[in-house]
């Protein structure tokens, strides 16, 4: 019969593992999506079975551009969240200073 705190520790570890599981799966899916996108964007002819120099350059630019796009979206999202949190805090302050 386990002590309660040991059981809770095991639960927490199971949760942490499950969340990490979701994170790894999402990161693998995200890479597959990028590679697919850059293939669709950059490769349109099939006269040979090797990537041309032009297709390789396009693929490299496509990948780098999407990576920088991801960074910008993350930055913009965090700023929006801060704005929303700041405006929600301001609204709360106004409500608290009004009861008369």
């Amino acid at each position: 019969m386990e002590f309660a705190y040991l059981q809770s520790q095991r639960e927490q570890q199971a949760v942490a593992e499950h969340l990490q599981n979701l994170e790894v799966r999402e990161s693998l899916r995200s890479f597959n999506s990028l590679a697919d996108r850059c293939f669709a964007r950059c490769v349109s002819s099939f006269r040979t079975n090797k990537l041309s120099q032009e297709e390789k350059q396009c693929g490299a630019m496509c990948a780098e551009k999407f990576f920088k796009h991801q960074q910008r979206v993350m930055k913009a999202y965090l700023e929006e969240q801060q704005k929303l949190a700041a405006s929600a805090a301001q609204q709360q302050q106004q409500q608290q200073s009004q009861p008369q």
Partner: protein
Amino acid sequence: MFSSNRAAAQAAPSGPSASLREAEYQILAFTDMYNRMLDSCHDKCISAKLADGDLHVGEAVCIDRCVAKFLAMQQHVSEKMTAVQKQMQQSAEAAQAAATGLKS
């Protein structure tokens, strides 16, 4: 998102594993929303012709505004869906009251 939280809250009974499940709902729903925003703003802001691997100034500004408008549309659609469903519920209750009134 009010709509998501309400759906998640309705489903989760009390208890430790229930709060884990609710956290999982929110992580999955957030990841889905975030990926859609990522793809939609890429489609709308990143030019099809790739000249280089860096973002142009125009692309960067577009992304900032696209993120803001995507989140605003999420909120707007959530409010509209809540209103539409409330209206439906009220119509159904009014119809039921009318039907009960007719029977007596």
